[in-house]
């Protein structure tokens, strides 16, 4: 089946490249996960809202507020597609075509080793090394998620729950199940608000919303859409007035409404212009800040299954890509020809996918790219992706089989 001596030689000549690319992927993956800060990201989102950049980014922007969403965009959509591809292109060519071109294949075949054994061993190495690459990246990724966000084991306790549990002397898990314990204890409330770095009023509102959210009873404002619409207009006029007083742009103020509360003159101006009483305005601001906090909690929610599927999908895409490069490595006797197609086609796929994402007018390019079958949005946002995975796997298997057969049948210029 396999030749151990050939595997050994292949390993010796390829492991450096593998180590370099795997290390780069791991470091980048770990950095992207570590620096993820839902507060900062959602702040950035707000800043971008309404700007041309947000339009360009489209719905990708909204998916970036969660850790997996950002990972899928920043890492799996780009780096995890291009870096392993470079490794694959170089290695696939080295495994067969380059050895035929240089003539060193003659030594392997001047021993009682069948061509089928040679090509099977080389194909196995390529597939195995790509799999190992993603396995390592996955393990490092999970480790980083646990280390930086505690999102895997022991639930992702928010800092206020941790602080309040200490004050109340109860178990963190019990407290998460019954947040009213915090509401009932003033000291716990103050400590929790401190831990979250928000006011006690806002924190109270947040806890109420959170409990309602947990039981699925979050108030649906849309039921009174007309009323809310009127009120929104009033609020916006109020915010504009407050912005004048504070000397900042209304858009900036909208993303940080706490400032209105902090400045009594601004609050008065807002109340006057909007026609809403000050206490109501404060409550509405508090409510807005509280739902911001709620959104932050969602940010570090992390589905291990989705994360594994992202990695599986990336591996399957690279499996199919490696089959393309390997096929041409088997077909051609010259490295330059093997590389022309074995590198050219995967790179073209990658470029087409990028082009398809840039704008609607170019979206047709997605039909020309294998990379489209690895749909990170579908994986993260609960879409369907099983069929695409199967298609990638089938393409890979078929191309590997064709390549191996071709190598066994062709004339070798050795």
């Amino acid at each position, binding site marked *: 089946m396999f*030749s*151990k*001596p*050939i595997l*050994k*030689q292949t390993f*010796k*000549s390829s492991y450096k490249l593998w180590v370099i690319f795997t290390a780069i992927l791991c470091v980048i993956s770990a950095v992207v996960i570590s620096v993820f800060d839902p507060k900062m990201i959602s702040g950035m989102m707000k800043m971008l809202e309404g700007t041309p950049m947000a339009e360009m980014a489209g719905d990708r922007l909204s998916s970036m507020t969660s850790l997996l969403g950002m990972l899928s965009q920043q890492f799996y959509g780009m780096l995890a597609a291009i870096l392993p591809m470079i490794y694959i292109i170089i290695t696939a060519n080295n495994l067969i075509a380059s*050895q035929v071109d*240089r*003539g*060193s294949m*003659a*030594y*392997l*075949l*001047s*021993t*009682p*080793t*069948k*061509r089928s054994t040679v090509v099977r061993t080389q194909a196995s190495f390529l597939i195995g090394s790509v799999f190992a690459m993603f396995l390592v990246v996955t393990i490092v990724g999970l480790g980083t998620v646990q280390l930086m966000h505690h999102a895997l084991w022991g639930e992702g306790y928010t800092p206020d729950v941790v602080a309040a549990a200490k004050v109340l002397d109860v178990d963190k898990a019990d407290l998460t199940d019954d947040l009213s314990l915090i509401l009932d204890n003033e000291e716990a409330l103050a400590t929790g608000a401190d831990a979250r770095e928000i006011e006690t009023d806002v924190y109270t509102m947040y806890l109420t919303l959170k409990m309602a959210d947990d039981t699925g009873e979050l108030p649906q404002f849309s039921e009174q859409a007309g009323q809310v619409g009127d009120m929104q207009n009033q609020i916006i006029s109020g915010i504009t007035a407050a912005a004048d007083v504070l000397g900042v742009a209304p858009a900036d103020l909208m993303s940080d409404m706490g400032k209105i509360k902090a400045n009594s003159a601004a609050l008065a101006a807002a109340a006057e212009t909007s026609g809403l009483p000050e206490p109501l305005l404060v409550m509405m601001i508090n409510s807005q800040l509280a739902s911001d906090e709620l959104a932050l909690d969602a940010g570090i929610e992390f589905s291990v299954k989705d994360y594994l599927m992202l990695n599986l999908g990336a591996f399957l895409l690279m499996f199919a890509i490696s089959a393309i490069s390997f096929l041409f490595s088997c077909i051609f006797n010259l490295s330059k020809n093997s590389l022309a197609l074995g590198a050219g086609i995967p790179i073209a796929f990658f470029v087409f996918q990028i082009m398809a994402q840039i704008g609607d007018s170019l979206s047709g390019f997605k039909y020309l790219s294998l990379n489209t079958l690895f749909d990170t949005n579908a994986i993260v946002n609960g879409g369907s992706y099983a069929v695409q995975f199967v298609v990638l796997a089938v393409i890979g298997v078929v191309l590997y089989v064709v390549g191996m057969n071709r190598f066994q*049948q062709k*004339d*070798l*210029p*050795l």
Partner: protein
Amino acid sequence: MSVLQVDHLTKDYGSGRGVFDVTFNVEKGEVFGFLGPNGAGKTTTIRHIMGFSRPQEGVTYVEGMNSWLEPAKIQRNLGYLPGEIALPEALTGTQFIKMMADLRGLKDMTRTNALIDRFELEPAGGLKRMSLGMKRKLAIVTAFMHDPQVLVLDEPTSGLDPLMQDMFIEFIKEEKARGKTILLSSHIFSEVDATCDRISIIKEGHLMSTFVANELRHSTSKTFKLEFNSKEEFERFRAEAEATKRLKILSVKRHRNQAKVQVEDADVNDFIAVISGYSLKFFSEIKFTLEDYFMKFYDRGGAAYAVN
């Protein structure tokens, strides 16, 4: 049954390149020389014997096994020395020897180590930095390490220094004495002349001639060159040679008073008796070499086809 059989092998690479209807056999214990310049089709023929290429027509056998159908089987008892030395660069010489031994399932390294000593190989360094001669020696060791009965050697001494070349020729003679069957492709006359029992000359993909080397070496006639001291002597000799018919004048150089004469070994005493009566500047034997024979085919160009 012949150990190596090349039977009406044809492979046309287009524009006159390739091999065309090549047939020859190498018997057990024989060293067979395969002589031709670069691009004549030596390596193409060997590629087919090794099973690297599929013949368009014809077939090649090694120990009765079809090269294309059972390439892995024939390699068990075959040693191959490629014409171009392209070793896997990531390895050191020692690692390469180990890999080849593993691929051959070779456990006993006694012979391998003896070969390393004999060829003064220093295998420790990386293959990338090895000199061509050292790489060639490494290839020789790995071709002979498993003591195969059949050897296919493609220009084995190119890149070796003259001392090593002589040693390699000695080594081939020893292997032959041990009953090995050897196909030796070369464009170097001296090594073919020194080792081969039979020789084939290939030109532009066609086999021109296959002959027994000893017949060439031990020809029953000799050729001598004579230079006379005067024009008169020269003309007198020509006249006498014409008359006796025993001395065959092959060619003359009038302005230098030289003549080339072919003499049967049986007539050599008569020849000496005849020339003792002339005033000679010198006389010397012109050795007929493989090179002369080889050149006949290449000098005459297209006409040489008729010889076969």
